[in-house]
C-alpha cells in the first residue's frame, strides 16, 4: 500500500510539472503576450516597462524557473488590471467557489444517488423511465441553459429566489442546483446500473431467501456493494464540477475564482488566468490522487494492478 501511494504521488508530481509547462507555454503561445495586453498605440517605453515587470526580457528557461519557483510558493505575480497580487485575488474568491462546489456536490449526491436506487428497484416502470429521461436530459442540456431556465422560473416568474450574487443560503440554491445538475444525472445513471448489477448477485438472493426485509436487503447488502464504483465516480467528477463552475459563476454573477478567471480573459489579465489554471489543475491532480488512494484502500485488488 505504501509503495503504491508513493508511486502515485510521484506520478502526481510529474503530472503537475507537466501542467506547469503547459500553463507556462500557453501564455507564450502567441509570441509576445505584451502586444496582446496593451493597446495598439502603446509607446515603446510602455512595452519595455511591461516586459520588465513580467520578466519577459529574460531567457525562456529562466522565466520558467522563476514561474515554477513562484508557483510552488503560491506567488503568481501581479494582476495587470487590479494592481494586486494574483494570489490575493484568487484566495479572496476561493471561499465563494468552494461554497458553490460544496453545495453542488451535496445536492447532486443526496438527490442523484436515491433517484438511481429508486430507478433500479422500480426498473421498467414509469418512475424508472422518468428518472432516466431526466438523467439523459441532464447530461445533454448545457448548464448555462439550465441556469437560465431556473432564473426564469424561480427568479423572474415566481420570485422565490435571488438570481445573482452571493450572500444568504437562498443565493446558493439556484447556482448550486445548476452546477450539480450534470453530476446528479451522472450519479443517478451510474447508481442505477451498478445497483442492477448488484441486485442479481447470489448474496442478494440469499439475503432475500433468509427472509430479510427488502429495505435491509437494499440498504445493508445491495447499496453497500454498489458504493465503491459510485464513490470513485463522485471523486473523479469533483474535478468536472470545478470546471463547470466557471460557467455557472458567469450565469449567476457568483463572485468566485471562475468569474475572476473569465473576467481576466476579457481584460487580457494573463497572470490571473495563469494562476487560476495552475491552481485548479493542481487541486484536480490532488483530488484524483486522493480518490485513487481511497479506492486502492477500499479495493485491495487495485494495488497490484
Amino acid at each position, binding site marked *: 500500500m505504501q509503495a503504491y501511494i508513493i508511486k502515485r504521488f510521484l*506520478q502526481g508530481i*510529474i*503530472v503537475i510539472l*507537466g*501542467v506547469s509547462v*503547459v*500553463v507556462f507555454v*500557453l*501564455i507564450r*503561445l*502567441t509570441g509576445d503576450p505584451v502586444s496582446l495586453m496593451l493597446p495598439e498605440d502603446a509607446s515603446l517605453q510602455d512595452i519595455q516597462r511591461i516586459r520588465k515587470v513580467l520578466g519577459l526580457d529574460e531567457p525562456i528557461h529562466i522565466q520558467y524557473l522563476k514561474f515554477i519557483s513562484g508557483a510552488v510558493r503560491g506567488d503568481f505575480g501581479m494582476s495587470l488590471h487590479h494592481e494586486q497580487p494574483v494570489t490575493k485575488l484568487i484566495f479572496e474568491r476561493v471561499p465563494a467557489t468552494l461554497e458553490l462546489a460544496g453545495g453542488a456536490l451535496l445536492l447532486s449526491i443526496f438527490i442523484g444517488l436515491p433517484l438511481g436506487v429508486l430507478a433500479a428497484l422500480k*426498473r*421498467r416502470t414509469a418512475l424508472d423511465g422518468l428518472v432516466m429521461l431526466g438523467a*439523459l*436530459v441532464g*447530461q*445533454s*442540456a*448545457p*448548464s*448555462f*441553459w439550465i441556469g*437560465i*431556465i431556473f*432564473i*426564469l422560473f424561480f427568479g*423572474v416568474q415566481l420570485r422565490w429566489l435571488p438570481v445573482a450574487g452571493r450572500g444568504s443560503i437562498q443565493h446558493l440554491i439556484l447556482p448550486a442546483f445548476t452546477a450539480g445538475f450534470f453530476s446528479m444525472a*451522472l450519479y443517478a*445513471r*451510474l447508481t442505477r*446500473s*451498478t445497483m*442492477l*448489477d448488484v441486485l*442479481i448477485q447470489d448474496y442478494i438472493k440469499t439475503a432475500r431467501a433468509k427472509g430479510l426485509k427488502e429495505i435491509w436487503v437494499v440498504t445493508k447488502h445491495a447499496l453497500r456493494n454498489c458504493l465503491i*464504483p459510485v464513490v470513485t*465516480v463522485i471523486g*473523479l*467528477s469533483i*474535478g*468536472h464540477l*470545478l*470546471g*463547470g463552475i*466557471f*460557467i455557472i459563476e*458567469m*450565469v449567476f454573477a457568483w463572485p468566485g475564482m471562475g468569474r475572476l*478567471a*473569465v473576467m481576466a*480573459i*476579457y481584460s487580457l489579465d494573463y497572470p490571473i*488566468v495563469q494562476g*487560476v*489554471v495552475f491552481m*485548479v*489543475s493542481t487541486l*484536480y*491532480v490532488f483530488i*484524483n490522487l486522493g480518490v485513487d488512494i481511497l479506492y486502492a484502500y477500499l479495493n485491495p485488488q487495485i494495488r497490484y494492478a
Partner: protein
Amino acid sequence: MSAEAIQARILEADLLAGAEKNRLLSILGELWKKKVVFVGGVILFSLLFVGIFAPYVSPYDPLKQELNIRISPPIWMAGAKAGHILGTDALGRDILSRLIWGARISLTVAVGATALSIGIGASLGLLAGFSGRKVDDLIMRLVDIQLAFPFILLAIALVSVMGASLQNVVIVLGITTWATPCRLVRAEVLSIKEREYIVAARASGQRTWSILLGQILPNAATPILVLATFDLGRFILSEASLSYLGLGVPPPTPSWGSMVADGQDYLSTAWWVSTIPGFIIMFACLGGNLLGDFLRDVMDPELKE
C-alpha cells in the same frame, strides 16, 4: 480525470449491467429503444440537412437587422410579427434563421473536433500500444497531464490565447480531448497484439504500419465509432459553452451559445430569445447521446473484450 473518463467508467458499468438488461428487454422495450434511436437519428440528420442547406431553408438573412421589429415574440404568442416563426432578437434578426445558420457552425465544430480528437488519440494510442515500454510510458504520462486539466478550463484558456475563430475552436476542442480515444485504442491494441493472426502477420514479414492499419485499427473501429457518436453531442455542448462565454466563433456569425448569452439580458421581458436556442443545443446533444447509447448497446459483445 475528466468528464470523458467518467463517461468511460459509466460505459463499463453499463456493460456490466448489459447482460441483465438484454434478458429483461421485452418486446415493448425493444420497440421503445428503436423509437428512441429513431428520434436520435432524426435529430442529428435533420440538423445535418438544415446545416448543409442553410441558404435554401433559412427564411431570412441571419444577419439582417430590422430594428423596428426588435424582440418580437414567436408566432403562437400575441404580438407576433408575420413571417418570423420563432420571433426576433434584440437587433430584430430572425431567430429561426439564426438557429438554422447556427446549426452549420455547431456541426462544423462538432465534426471537425471529433475527427481531430480521434485522429490524434487513435494515432497516439496505436503508437503507445505497439511500441516499447518507453514510448508507451511517455504517451500515458501525456494522457495523465491532459486529463489533469478540467477540460473546459483548458479550452477557455487556450481559446483566449489563440483568439476566437471557427478554426481555433475546432483545434482547441480537438487537442484537449484526445486522451480518451488514445486510451481506448491503446487498450484495444494491447488486447489483440499477441493474438495468433497478428503474430502470423508479423512472422510473414508484414511491416508494422501495415499491421497497425490493416489488422489492428479495424478491430478498434467499433469502440471508436461509439465514442465518436457521443463526442458529436459533447462537442456541440462544448462549442455552445465557449460561445456562451464569448470565446466561440466571433459575432455577428450566428452561434447557438452566443444567442443564449445575448438573450439573457432580456430574460424578464422576452424569455424566448435566450431559451429557444438553449433548447436546440440540448436537443442536438441529446441526439448524439441517444444514438451513442444505442450503438453501444448493439456493439456490446465487441466492446466487452
